[in-house]
């Protein structure tokens, strides 16, 4: 692909950025919501660690690491989160998918570019206040090493692509099912758990931890936070990032294949 082939998608990224900017007020309340989540989980973990000696760890996490894990997980989420699934469901329900398809661009590329643009806005305007508030209020650790911090940053972009593709796949179910409210809700809670946002996957029962290894979800939240905490030696940082990239590629191919099959089933509501 040449650079001009990407030009429309770059334009989509820009439009998504501007579109999100129009609703920036919404993000100020978002900061409070994120703060409430992190506070809740912080005190929950604190209560659990009260049974331990000070400095003692569970599954390799002491209280300070656990607080950092939770806070960094939510900071990352403030960047990679998107509603691609809901956007597609709305396009189908309102029949606006017709307008989307009348454009000379790939649906897949358009949806991912949209998510990417919104996340760039979040990175500039939402993640910094979330991070500042969390660092001021909780005793959080800095990244383990400079390289770990960099790997965390790169990993968040790959998380964004995995998260967006999972949502794209869920959203495309609406081609067949028309209403996917229930599925989206189930996905939301499953993803909070399986991504490692609520707790590190090492806390899962053995079978679930093993299963998670074969799924892309833990690379959304567990991996970036683990990189931040230095759970991988600097020399091996490339390995998890490579695996994460392969998941992006795999999910991308899966989405392309499903689109080629399912777009034929599309029905357009309304006149």
């Amino acid at each position, binding site marked *: 692909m040449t650079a001009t082939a990407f*030009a429309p998608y770059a334009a989509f990224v820009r439009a998504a950025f501007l579109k999100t900017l129009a609703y920036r007020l919404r993000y100020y309340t978002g900061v409070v919501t994120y703060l409430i989540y992190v506070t809740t989980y912080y005190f929950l973990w604190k209560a659990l660690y009260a049974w331990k000696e000070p400095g003692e760890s569970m599954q390799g996490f002491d209280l300070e690491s656990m607080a950092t894990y939770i806070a960094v997980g939510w900071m990352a989420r403030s960047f990679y989160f998107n509603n691609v699934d809901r956007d597609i469901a709305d396009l189908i329900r309102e029949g606006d998918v017709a307008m989307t398809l009348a*454009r000379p661009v790939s649906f897949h590329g358009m949806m991912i570019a949209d998510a990417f643009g919104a996340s760039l806005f979040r990175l500039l305007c939402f993640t910094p206040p979330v991070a500042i508030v969390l660092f001021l209020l909780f005793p959080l650790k800095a990244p383990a090493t400079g390289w770990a911090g960099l790997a965390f940053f790169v990993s968040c972009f790959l998380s964004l692509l995995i998260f967006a593709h999972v949502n794209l796949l869920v959203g495309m179910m609406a081609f067949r099912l028309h209403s996917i409210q229930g599925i989206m809700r189930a996905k939301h809670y499953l993803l909070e758990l399986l991504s490692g946002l609520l707790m590190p996957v090492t806390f899962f029962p053995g079978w679930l931890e093993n299963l998670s290894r074969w799924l892309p979800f833990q690379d959304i939240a567990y991996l970036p936070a683990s990189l931040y905490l230095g759970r991988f030696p600097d020399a091996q940082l490339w390995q998890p990032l490579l695996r994460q990239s392969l998941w992006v590629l795999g999910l991308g191919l899966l989405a392309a294949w499903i689109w080629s099959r399912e777009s*034929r089933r599309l029905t357009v509501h*309304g006149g």
Partner: protein
Amino acid sequence: MTAVDVRDLRKTFRRFRRREGLGGALKDLVHRRSETIEAVNGITFSIEPGERVGYIGPNGAGKSTSVKMLTGILTPTSGRMQVLGMEPFRDRREYVQHIGVVFGQRTQLWWDLAVIESFRLLGKMYRLEPGRLDERLGELREILELDEFLHTPVRKLSLGQRMRADLAASLLHRPRLLFLDEPTIGLDLMAKDAIRSFLKQVNERFGTTILLTTHDLRDIEALTERVLVIDHGQLLFDGALDLLRGQADQESVAVLDFLEPPEPEALRGVGDWVRWTRLSSTRFEARFSKSDRSLARFLGKVVADFAVADVSLPEPSIEEVIRKIYQERRPEREVMA
């Protein structure tokens, strides 16, 4: 080369039938009954470059479904469809670069962005050079009076402004073929006129082929030379507008105002070839089949026998013409409202 060539086009949908009541809902949980809907049922037509064609029919006739197939959004169930030498669905991304689409009830613009931002974005999408985009905008901004809202977010536009913006958006890449699905819906008379004359200009200046669906028959009268009439997924008429009008001209209609209420007996006395309908106590409508002397004979007799205040001979509206075609071709079915 033909612009649009459609042969025996069909589209069937499967729809689940919901049974009534709680018991029905429970039965549906176990076994859903489906039925097949033939939305488009074997349509054949072709359109030459530069033509302006109206596509009309009642709600649910299959107009929108066929337009969605022609624009590459839906796949046909069967049949052959060549538009601008391409197969719309299969070649979608290449194909849509050469067509413009306006759906009156939807917008292709970005709701939260200023109009000009949407245009820039579309320019990028159609890979127009920036200079080319400005040039096209320059052509459009005056006739569509875009300047008054170029920097306003789309969600704040009036319906008429939005439609003008959408029309401009659909023409930025100078499409060879323009599909318009109810482009004047909900607009006031002035705005409708503006849109109609604009479309005519586009067609004449750039040779853009236009296919237009509408419920407003004045759109058809003002814009198109040729009409396709569709109902129940089938093509009922394909030809010049005048020919369509001619079909209904087999009957003359006269509306008469009498100075005082006429005796029904006396009206019948005019002749059994006249059918009378009472519109008010002194206003009556007369219908009779058209022949060389029938109108003269009718008027002569009425003026001689009654004190007539006024006579008018209304042109048959196209709506009426279409209703007649439906009734003739499909007498066993009710016309859908």
